[in-house]
């Protein structure tokens, strides 16, 4: 691989739909952790539910000749229905998770969410629901991407802008790039608005000390639930975006996904508006760069090509550990927070 090609690949990650999908998921997690201090260790569960909710709904409608409850569905209507199902499913999941755990201390939520996310993944993989979820192979992209790609205003061929070539409408397309980043921008705007509102102030209070907020007359349980559900819905939408560029496969949304979302949130800066975006861009870009450079400079005799991927992930991991140790507030975080010793 040549150096210029590597730079182009890394540059493509800056605006790739995957980057956007993870940025969106991280905005969701930012509502949980950054604003409210909720330790949600099962964000991939929300993302996976969003993917399933959307993909299954759209596939069923498409296979039913675009008919739903006796109505003919235009592509836009099918998409709206799929997104609605994704939202409803993630709301229910959030309520179920929060109901028993939000009254307990924070660590319990972490344990329950990580287990619940794994349960979602295993249910998705199980042969019992193979007709619905496709088991461990998941749902092929062409089964549910139709309506979204049909709406594309971009040409149905490869389009080159600058050094980057993507298809206009299909799979990881310019159309998906535009839609993904528009949604990310809207979510960031929502976070900006809410984090600077009295509602967001209560959440920050909960993050700092629940009992203090209780003693000031606020219903802490209700606020934590609102934050959990809202962040979960945004995470589910991140899952939907991710599935547009890929396919729905349960194992692509396992524990590592959750930790990546955490990593890029902490990298960019928790509780900041643009932290999740910056974090996602840097994370995916450096992953490609490290992988590419390792392939260029490490001889095959040291590491085989199949070992390169885990190796570069490890390097990224170590870098991020260092970052969290020496700059725990992230790149965009407030420097003064470091002075406060209550971690």
């Amino acid at each position: 691989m040549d150096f210029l090609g590597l730079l182009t690949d890394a540059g493509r990650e800056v605006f790739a739909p995957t980057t956007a999908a993870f940025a969106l998921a991280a905005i969701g997690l930012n509502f949980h952790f950054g604003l409210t201090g909720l330790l949600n260790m099962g964000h991939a569960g929300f993302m996976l539910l969003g993917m399933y909710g959307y993909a299954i709904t759209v596939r069923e409608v498409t296979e039913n000749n675009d008919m739903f409850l006796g109505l003919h569905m235009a592509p836009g209507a099918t998409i709206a229905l799929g997104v609605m199902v994704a939202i409803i499913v993630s709301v229910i999941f959030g309520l179920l998770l929060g109901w028993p755990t939000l009254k307990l201390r924070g660590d319990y939520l972490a344990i329950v969410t990580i287990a619940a996310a794994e349960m979602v993944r295993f249910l998705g993989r199980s042969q019992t629901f193979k007709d619905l979820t496709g088991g461990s192979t998941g749902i092929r992209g062409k089964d549910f991407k139709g309506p979204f790609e049909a709406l594309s205003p971009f040409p149905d061929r490869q389009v080159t802008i600058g050094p980057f070539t993507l298809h206009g409408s299909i799979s990881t397309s310019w159309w998906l790039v535009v839609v993904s980043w528009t949604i990310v921008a809207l979510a960031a705007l929502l976070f900006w608005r809410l984090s600077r509102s009295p509602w967001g102030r209560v959440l920050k209070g909960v993050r700092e000390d629940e009992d203090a907020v209780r003693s000031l007359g606020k219903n802490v349980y209700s606020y934590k639930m609102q934050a959990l559900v809202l962040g979960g819905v945004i995470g589910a939408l991140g899952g939907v975006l991710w599935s547009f560029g890929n396919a729905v496969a349960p194992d692509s949304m396992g524990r590592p996904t959750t930790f990546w979302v955490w990593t890029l949130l902490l990298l960019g800066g928790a509780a900041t508006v643009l932290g999740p975006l910056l974090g996602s861009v840097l994370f995916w870009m450096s992953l490609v760069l490290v992988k590419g450079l390792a392939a260029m400079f490490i001889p095959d005799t040291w590491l085989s090509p199949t070992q390169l991927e885990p190796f570069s992930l490890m390097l990224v991991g170590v870098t991020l550990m260092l970052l969290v140790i020496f700059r725990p507030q992230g790149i965009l975080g407030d420097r003064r927070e470091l002075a406060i010793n209550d971690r």
Partner: protein
Amino acid sequence: MTAKENPFAHTSATPGSAKSDPVIVAHGVHRSFGGLTAVDVEHLEVQRHAITALIGPNGAGKSTFFNLLTGFDKPQKGEWSFNGDSLQSHSPAKVARAGMVRTFQLTKALSRMTVIENMRLGAAGQGGENFFTALFPALWRAKEATITAKAEDLLERFKLIDKQNDFAGELSGGQRKLLEMARALMSDPEIVMLDEPMAGVNPALTESLLEHIVELRERGVTVLFVEHDMHMVRRISDWVVVMAEGKIIAEGPPETVMQNTAVQDAYLGAHHDTDLSEDLS
């Protein structure tokens, strides 16, 4: 006391005595942890517009009793009312909204929020704390301005106005106590419950804290506080309630309650003339 007639003039100095105008009435409150009885209060009335001190040796159940009254803990049995309305099995938030706001022994300043944001959070009735309302600033901006003005007033009074844009975590221990007290006043409570307001406060700030507590009474706020420092109790309280082993063993004006033999036995021992605060610090 001020020039007003002493509201305790006709109150007998016996445990559980009736007050002329009680704001809190507790009866038969019992809380035990396993076999250990932490609180077993037969009857207590707290006089309105006065400063009542709740004292007692370590482990007497003062803080537990505080937690019960404010909804942070649930008793096995018992009933209590605030302004005649029962507060039993109310959540802490509901108790606070009813007008009874507490502070904590270990100060709970919200560290990574600014001082002014801490204050604003204390306010009641900000509609923008609802999710949907929060999305439309036009609906809550006016109220926010009122709240901010009030917060600045209070910060001025508590001499924290210069710190308003600092993180609360950057304040000293004493300043955090002041902030917590000021924050509790944002919702105009009828009664503030201070759990060891002097703990960990340096002597220079003690004086101003005392003044603030006395000033609260002058502004018509009832104060109930838990304290170890006997000097402070003597100086500012109008009435003293003594607890030991979960029970109320004595009540009376601060000048005379220390003479009570039950109090001396349970709490002060042979050292009732010495300054306990030195032993405790």
